[in-house]
Every structure is written in structure tokens, then in C-alpha cells.
């Protein structure tokens, strides 16, 4: 596949991620912060997000598995996850955290467990999507091309 085709593929894929709500405008902001002096910025931040999230999901699973659930702790973890997903533009993960926090306040263990499932699912989905996107980017760069700079409006919803 030649570079032009790859770039179009990247564009189509990015568009779909926005259309399906996996990513929001904040992700665009990250891309705008990437430049020749910081060529790996997005990958670095997203990698931090993956590490952070995996740790938080583990901690959440553990916390909700206790006989006496510490909802303050659970809420603190969810708050962190909501914050980091919001910071990188992982919209669906962020949105899944919102009802989660409400159920923490209500101290509803069952509902929290359901929310945790939901958050895990959304996290897995966005992780796969982003990894696919990064693979596409690697292919473009390896073929000597550059990753398109996209404005949200260009994705023409």
C-alpha cells in the first residue's frame, strides 16, 4: 500500500473513532501538541494512560471485592480514571465513570460492579482502537510519509 492510501486509511479510521464517540476533541488537542521536536508525544501520553488505567482497574476490582467496601477509596480511583481518560480524550471511558461515581455515593456495591464491567469494556475497546491507530501511524512513517494534521471540522460529520 502506498503512502497516500495509508494516510487516507488513517483519516477514515480516525473519523470513525470520533463518530463512534471513542475519542473526543481533547484527543485532537493532543495531536496538535505533537510536533517535530516532540514526535512521540501522543503515544507517550496514551501509554501513560494505559499504564495508569490498568493499575486503577486492578485496584477497583480489589476494592469492590472486599467484604466491607471502602466507597471513598473506590470513588477516589474512579475520579482518577475519569480525570485521566478526560485528559486524553477517551470519551466513552470518561462517560462510563460518571454513573460509577454516583453509585459510589449511594454505596451500591452491585451497581458499582456493573459499572466496573462497563468501564473495563470501554477501556479495552479504546485501547484496541488506539493501538490500531498507532500501528497505522507507524506504517505511514516507515513508508516515509507523515501523519495528517487534522482539524475536527475536516472529519466532516
Amino acid at each position, binding site marked *: 500500500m502506498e503512502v497516500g492510501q495509508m494516510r487516507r486509511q488513517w483519516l477514515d479510521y480516525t473519523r470513525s473513532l*470520533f463518530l463512534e*464517540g471513542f*475519542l*473526543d*476533541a*481533547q484527543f485532537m*488537542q*493532543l495531536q*496538535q*501538541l505533537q510536533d517535530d521536536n*516532540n514526535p512521540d*508525544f501522543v503515544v*507517550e*501520553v496514551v501509554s*501513560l*494512560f494505559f499504564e*495508569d488505567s490498568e493499575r486503577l482497574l486492578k485496584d477497583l476490582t480489589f476494592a469492590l471485592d472486599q467484604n466491607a467496601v471502602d466507597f471513598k477509596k473506590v470513588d477516589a480511583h474512579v*475520579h*482518577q480514571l*475519569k*480525570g*485521566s481518560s*478526560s*485528559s*486524553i*480524550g477517551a*470519551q466513552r471511558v470518561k462517560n462510563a465513570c460518571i454513573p460509577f461515581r454516583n453509585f459510589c455515593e449511594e454505596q451500591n456495591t452491585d451497581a458499582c460492579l456493573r459499572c466496573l464491567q462497563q468501564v473495563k469494556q470501554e477501556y479495552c475497546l479504546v485501547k484496541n482502537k488506539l493501538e490500531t491507530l498507532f500501528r497505522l501511524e507507524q506504517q505511514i512513517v516507515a513508508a516515509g510519509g507523515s501523519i495528517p494534521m487534522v482539524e*475536527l471540522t475536516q472529519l466532516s*460529520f
Partner: protein
Amino acid sequence: MGMAAAESPFHVLAVDDSLIDRKLIERLLRTSSYQVTTVDSGSKALEFLGLNENDESNPSTPSVSPNNHHQEVEVNLVITDYCMPGMTGYDLLKKIKESSSLRNIPVVIMSSENVPSRINRCLEEGAEEFFLKPVRLSDLNKLKPHMKKTKLKDQKQGTEDKLDNSEVQQLQPQQQIQNDLQEAPKPQDPQPESESHLEQPQQSLQQANNKRKTIEQGLSPETDRTRPRYSGIATVV
């Protein structure tokens, strides 16, 4: 700026317990051509600013330290997350504003939560701006006027010998009073009549103050400050 000799880049101290957010804010600030130092807690921030956490600076003394002798590095602005374990951003803001050596440093608060009472509390305590996270590049455009003001003040103190230093100190609370966010004069005001005295320094500092006034007028009026910033970022898909 005619008064500036050689202008070094503004130095911002960013405080956030989240590694991701620290990375983000650092990149945002560097992109805006600021020098950045990031720390992960309020206590580390105070350490960096040269203030021992246990220092109790008496807020009611009109003592003046125009040159920050304890400060190792000059900091032109502090931008801090609100929700942090241990010392919150609000606590940090208070400590800075209560310190005679640090209170001229503008402080900006960031938060992922849009809580009007929280926003008001921070602004009343002296925060210049309150940004909702995630912070955007466009938000950072609001920072320069605040930093320029402090540089201007530092230069003024150096060049205006006749100027009584206590008058300059009053210019800081004046800005807050103008915002109508407080009913009573703040504790750090040296005299209760400080509000009326502020008119005089303004007239005698014609040259510098005209610039300062312009900057202040250029800043959003109080309604903008108390209005939550979410309206600017409601473009999320």
C-alpha cells in the same frame, strides 16, 4: 514593553498529582513558550518556591520583601490542580497568598469538576483564573497578562525609588476588591481604609499604571471570572 530590559521567558510552576496531567500541562506551557517546572504536590511546590511549609508569615504585617530572598528561582505564575491528596490546590493558594514573599505570584487553579462554590472560593482567595480540565491551549492565552503584571511590578519597585513600597503592596488587594468578590477588606490589607488610599498610588504611578490599567481592563471583568469556563469547551463531540 518599554520598561523591560532583557526579557527572559516567563517561568511557570505547575502542580498536579496526576502524571498524565503534568505531562500535558508541561507540553501546553512549553508550546506557549514558557519555562516550566512541574511538581506533584503542594508541599513540593512550596519547597520549590522557597517557603518552608511551617513558616507562619503574619498576614497582617505590612512587611515588604520586594526581592524574594528565599526564592531560588523566579516563578512568574503557579498553576495548580485543585484535587490533590494532602495539600489541595486551594490550601496551596492560601499559603502563597498568606506569604509576604510569595503573594504577588499569580495563582491559577485547574479542576476537572465544575463546582461554582469551589470556583468562587478560589477566586475570593486570590486565584487569578479557574480553568476546567482538560486545559486547552486557548486557556493559556489568559495567563500572559497576569505574568506581565508581576514583572511590571518587580521593575516598578526597582525603578521607582520615591514610591512607598506599602503602596505597591496594596495594588494587589485592589485588584481583588475591584472584582467585588469580597465584602470586607482581606486580612492582608494593612489598613482598613486601604480601599480609598488606592486611588492615590494610581495617580502618582501614571506611567506604569496606565499600562497596568490597560492590562486589567483587557482582562475579563469579574463576570467572566466567576463564570465557569465550561462554556469554552463545550465543543466535545
